């Protein structure tokens, strides 16, 4: 029988183990990527976490590459649980080889050492195949950390039939947009929805206006949420909300889709990838939709914006980075893969492609035979590519969404919400050990 002293000693040893492990505290990923290229003939399986429906493209890869099998695992979209899961897997040292990470979240994963430096595996030679600004989303301090997949140039989806019936011009400026909204309301519809919990959607408009929510000054992050451009945008939507010209419903939810189906919502300023969502959720409106340039803040301009976009990242801890990089590059540049991705509605390709050569260049019966992607091609060229994302974007956007939600419940204005959120944005950055200040 063990003595009391022995039992206590065991207990103390068991207790000491984690405490000692704690002393070697390190930041971020618990395991670093180890490159060991498979021996010839050795089979490799890559795990890929994504919420984008790209199973068909992966099936094509698996068919063509029997030695490098990619196992797609569907995770909840971005902040609905996907990123939480990725962060946990990094901390636990058991991450997937590849993961879908949106452009805005790349700096966040970068900050916790969650991404593999791909420059060491020759990724820089692939650069020429991609649109430059999209490639730059995965570049930090001169090294490449992710392969871009798609972006979201913005345009105005609108119901041609309703505009014809009501005899209203398709608005070219935001002033005209408001005027059209007043007329549409008289006809018993609304021009669009204002989603309370979608800071990314809202951010597209200050971006279009020329605002920069975050910039860097040496090693300091400068936050400018409530600059004159952003406030102008906020005032515009404040006015639309106050006059009841927009429906305060979350986009991509049942009430929103009902509006698109019934004509209760006549337009939607959205990203290119919304084409698949409209097509899929309002199939009976086929032929009635068209796409125009995003309304302009200044008459005669062609400024566009971007909403969304994501990359294929190779997480820190992958055991097969070489094969993973090969697959990521194939997925995002192979013509066969791109066509399958386009069919799945994944967004505007990051690879340089000839519109006419791909599925994107065809006239589309859903949009009344319009070659609507020509509009998005123009928009893509007119995105201000100097916009940057902070490494706290998820968190900071959550603050904005929380504040906007309160505004829609009748507490304060969007402009005030932006002013309040600016301070929180700075605090978020500081809490991560970064230097940050407010722009004013």
């Amino acid at each position: 029988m063990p003595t009391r002293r022995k039992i206590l000693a065991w207990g103390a040893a068991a207790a000491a183990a984690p405490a000692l492990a704690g002393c070697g505290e390190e930041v971020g990923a618990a395991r670093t990527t180890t490159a060991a290229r498979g021996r010839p003939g050795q089979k490799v399986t890559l795990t890929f976490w994504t919420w984008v429906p790209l199973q068909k493209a992966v099936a094509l890869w698996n068919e063509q590459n029997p030695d490098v099998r990619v196992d797609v695992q569907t995770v909840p979209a971005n902040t609905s649980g996907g990123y939480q899961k990725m962060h946990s897997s990094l901390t636990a040292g058991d991450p997937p080889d590849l993961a879908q990470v949106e452009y805005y979240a790349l700096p966040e994963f970068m900050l916790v050492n969650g991404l593999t430096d791909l420059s060491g595996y020759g990724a820089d030679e692939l650069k020429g195949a991609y649109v430059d600004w999209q490639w730059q989303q995965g570049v930090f301090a001169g090294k490449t950390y992710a392969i871009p997949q798609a972006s979201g140039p913005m345009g105005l989806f609108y119901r041609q039939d309703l505009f014809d019936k009501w005899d209203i011009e398709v608005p070219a400026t935001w002033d005209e947009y408001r005027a059209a909204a007043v007329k549409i309301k008289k006809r018993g519809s609304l021009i669009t929805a204002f989603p309370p919990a979608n800071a990314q959607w809202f951010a597209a408009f200050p971006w279009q206006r020329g605002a920069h929510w975050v910039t860097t000054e040496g090693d300091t992050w400068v936050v400018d949420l409530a600059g004159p451009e952003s406030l102008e945008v906020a005032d515009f939507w404040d006015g639309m909300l106050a006059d009841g010209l927009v429906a305060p419903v979350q986009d991509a939810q049942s009430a929103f889709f009902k509006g698109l189906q019934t004509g209760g919502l006549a337009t939607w300023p959205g990203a290119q990838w919304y084409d698949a969502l409209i097509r899929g959720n309002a199939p009976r409106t086929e032929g009635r939709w068209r796409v125009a340039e995003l309304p302009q803040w200044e008459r005669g301009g062609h400024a566009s914006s971007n909403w969304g976009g994501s990359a294929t990242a190779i997480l820190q801890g992958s055991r097969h980075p070489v094969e993973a990089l090969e697959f990521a590059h194939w997925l995002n540049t192979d013509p066969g893969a791109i066509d399958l991705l386009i069919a799945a509605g994944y967004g505007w390709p990051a690879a340089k492609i000839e519109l006419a050569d791909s599925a994107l260049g065809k006239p589309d019966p859903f949009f009344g035979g319009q070659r609507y992607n020509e509009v998005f091609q123009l928009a893509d060229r007119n995105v201000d590519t100097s916009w940057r994302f902070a490494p706290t974007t998820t968190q900071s956007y959550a603050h904005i969404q929380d504040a906007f939600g309160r505004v829609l419940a009748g507490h304060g204005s969007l402009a005030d919400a932006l002013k309040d959120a600016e301070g929180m944005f700075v605090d978020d950055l500081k809490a991560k050990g970064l230097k940050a200040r407010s722009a004013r």
Partner: protein
Amino acid sequence: MSTSVKPGRARSGTAGRGRRGGRPDRKAWAFLGPFLALYLFAMVVPVLYAVYQSMLKVERSGPMGLGEPSVGFAGFENYSLALQQETFVDGFGRVLLFGIVQVPVMLLLALVLALLLDQVSHRWAGLLRATYFLPYGIPGVVATILWGFLYVPGVSPITSVLGDLGFQPDFLGYDSVLWSIANIVVWQFAGYNMLIIIAQLKSVPQELYEAARIDGAGPWQTALRIKIPLVRPALVLTTVFSIIGTMQLFAEPLVLKKVAPAVTTDYTPNLSAYFDAFANANLYLAAAKSVILAVVAMVLSFGFLSLVTRRQRSER
């Protein structure tokens, strides 16, 4: 059991007798050992580790702070940072308000259910008890999804029926969503608490009731003057459980958040710590928030306990 022990004792004879004096039995440690080790490993060490982590911070340098990071000692910096976050502190106010209303309502309901069940004939008691207890068997997440359907306008039969009657209830609005969550929690835990109270009621000796009946007490008087005072320990226990549970409010708001923008990321302190740890990848700040939460929960539950025991002592 006793028969197998006795011969053993008889054989060891004087040794057993000698051990009884002064020092505690060595055998007791053998029984306590596994528990203590587990307690140390699963409880004390993680708490100490959380406290340790809450005193750390990441230091970053280089362009945009993306250079090589290092972990440094932060002292109480994370604590002051957490307490400066207005939304985090607001979360405490919210759960306190929640607890002040929800806990009494739930326990009153549990008590009434227990007293009623005590009156019901034996044949039905088992069935009813199981029925009341059933919601507790449903995981919180599932329960919230279920109630979520009943709250969302356009999907919910409740809102549509009330709408036909001319009411426009907004269960997920800014001022009402907290009480919609309270409703879910009451639904889930009233039956569980009832079970604890009823267990205590069953242990009351029948002679007491007989004596009361002889003294001329009706069912009302028996309930008020005998049953309720006697289940007081059970009520104290369930209140402490409920205080701790309230402070830890998490699954219900997290799940409801999907359909209710009014539920913010810092809606409850637990939610706030969760988002810091897993969405914002700041484990150290999350650790500080968790420690603050643990301290507040401890102060509240011990405060409540000392309050009721002091009253008990003065009553004696």
